[in-house]
């Protein structure tokens, strides 16, 4: 088994999915927006990247094949290796475009529901995503159910596939780091406090002078834009995309990452993404290695993800790395009353462990009730 290859693919997917889980964390974990349509904006980003990059390459070479046709795929085979600079420019351009268009889409779709209850938003974006997917399945210019292929990899000029994938992985990681830092800054600022206030009590926040619909719209724009970036990355990494990738179960996978890793906590979002993408990649490898299993490993993976969500909600609803309520950034700013001393913290941990062990023991004694 190719360990290096597995690692590179895992870290690349980890980066892409982490961007998704951080974006969902901003929306759901911090602002309390139930966004059940992540896959939709992920997909919009991917298709924008695919369509625009193919269009640019074909038009610049004076070709006018339909984007989905075999001629395009064949032509792209050579075109993508001719001009490295063009590849990179198109890559960067489509990434930005994906961010903007997905962000705007996120804002527009949610606009009618900003002033009403959270359930409406969730169902609206979910339906929007499904409608979009079904539309794309039947929309010939973007390839219908087959989708688009031949998407020009930014490093297509690199001969060695491992080196190419490694370079892409580094780009994805860099984007992840940038997005992570941006999100950390955002939530550790008065704006982050604002987001949490909307989550805690929308009405009270409104009463305290906060334009709650505008805040929700802003967060959804940012979150959907980030999902668009992730989608564009996916398109370039895989080289081909089709509408059936962007199904609701993908949205729920991202939700599982946020719930399991820890909501309202960017590190938690990373942890959740890491674990679930590992399961993802591992099941691909296992499927490949054990071809004679009675069950497709993917289905076992879905069950595992579901179990993970339920177990988390039962035993540790805040997720593995819970929200950091005590050490507000305010303290660290002003030096006074810094976060609790090391001694106090170890005492606290000791107390908690004792309590937890007691709980476990009593759980056992009750016959596991």
């Amino acid at each position, binding site marked *: 088994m190719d360990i290096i290859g597995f690692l590179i693919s895992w870290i690349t997917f980890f980066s892409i999915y982490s961007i998704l889980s951080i974006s969902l964390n901003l929306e759901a974990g911090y602002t309390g927006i139930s966004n059940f349509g992540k896959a939709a904006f992920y997909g919009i980003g991917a298709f924008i990247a695919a369509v625009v990059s193919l269009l640019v390459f074909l038009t610049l070479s004076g070709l006018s094949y339909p984007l989905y046709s075999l001629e395009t795929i064949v032509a792209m085979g050579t075109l993508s290796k001719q001009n490295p600079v063009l590849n990179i420019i198109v890559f960067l351009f489509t990434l930005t475009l994906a961010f903007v268009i997905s962000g705007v889409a996120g804002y527009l779709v949610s606009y009618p529901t900003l002033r009403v209850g959270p359930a409406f938003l969730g169902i609206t974006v979910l339906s929007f995503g499904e409608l979009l997917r079904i539309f794309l399945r039947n929309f010939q210019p973007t390839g219908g159910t087959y989708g688009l292929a031949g998407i020009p990899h930014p490093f297509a000029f690199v001969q060695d596939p491992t080196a190419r994938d490694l370079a892409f992985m580094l780009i994805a990681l860099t984007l992840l780091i940038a997005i992570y830092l941006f999100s950390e800054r955002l939530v550790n*600022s008065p704006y982050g406090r604002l987001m949490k206030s909307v989550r805690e009590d929308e009405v*009270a926040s409104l009463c*305290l002078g*906060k334009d709650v619909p505008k805040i929700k719209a802003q967060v959804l724009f940012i979150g959907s834009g980030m999902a668009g970036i992730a989608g564009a990355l996916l398109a370039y990494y895989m080289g081909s995309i089709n509408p059936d990738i962007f199904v609701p179960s993908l949205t729920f996978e991202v939700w599982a990452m946020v719930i399991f890793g820890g909501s309202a906590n960017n590190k938690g979002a990373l942890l959740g993404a890491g674990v679930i993408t590992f399961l993802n990649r591992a099941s691909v490898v296992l499927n490949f290695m054990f071809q004679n299993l009675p069950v497709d490993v993917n289905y076992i993976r879905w069950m595992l993800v579901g179990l993970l969500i339920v177990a988390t909600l039962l035993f540790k609803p805040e997720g593995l790395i819970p*929200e950091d309520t005590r050490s507000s950034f305010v303290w660290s700013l002003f030096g006074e009353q810094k976060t609790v001393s090391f001694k106090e913290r170890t005492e606290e941990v000791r107390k908690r462990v004792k309590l937890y062990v007691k709980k476990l023991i009593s759980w056992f004694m009750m016959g596991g009730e």
Partner: protein
Amino acid sequence: MSVREGSVTGLIGPNGSGKTTLFNVISGFYPPDSGEVYFMGNKITGLNPNEIYNLGVIRTFQNPRLFPRLTVLENLLVAAGSRGERVTSSIAKRNWVDGEAKLVKKAYEIAKSVGLEGVERNIASDVSGAHMKLIETARSLMNSPKVLLVDEPAAGISYSAAKNLFNYLLKLKEDYGITLFIIEHRIDILMDYVDYVYVLHLGKLLSQGTPEEVLSDKKVREAYIGD
């Protein structure tokens, strides 16, 4: 109905007479079926609650609506506006650090004057009920209000604590020039502090006047006791 600037005006009436609903209409939560609301000569009917808040008309809730998972201090800080509360300026710390420092100081001062010392670092859902009421009051002061719509400030607290609270509200009026419009069921306490009283009954204005006039009004007695 009108509330004179600088006055302490009371709003009383039996349960269900529409007092909180009136506050909801004034603060922009419910659009009125008819009629207009004016503040300092400007029409404010139909504005959003957050716009009305920023004009200086601030209401408190009977049952404190705090942000449970934020600390007491953060609850207070949200109530004040901050430059860091815009997406673009929140990313660079230097934009809002100084403003935050001033706000934190202000929050501590207000907390102290309300009697909330020592709990600022606690999570809001962890503090006692009495403290919650104080936080609700302190929050309403964070954004330099011109008018405070106070909904039953003395509900559920002892007589002496209620008197302290009312004394404090009066002091606020003197120090900051805030106009007070107070809903209160405990007429025994309220009447010592108000200049003018409106009485609502079944959604309509039943009586108005100075405390003495209202207390001796037969209609008011009938409404409350049902003679």
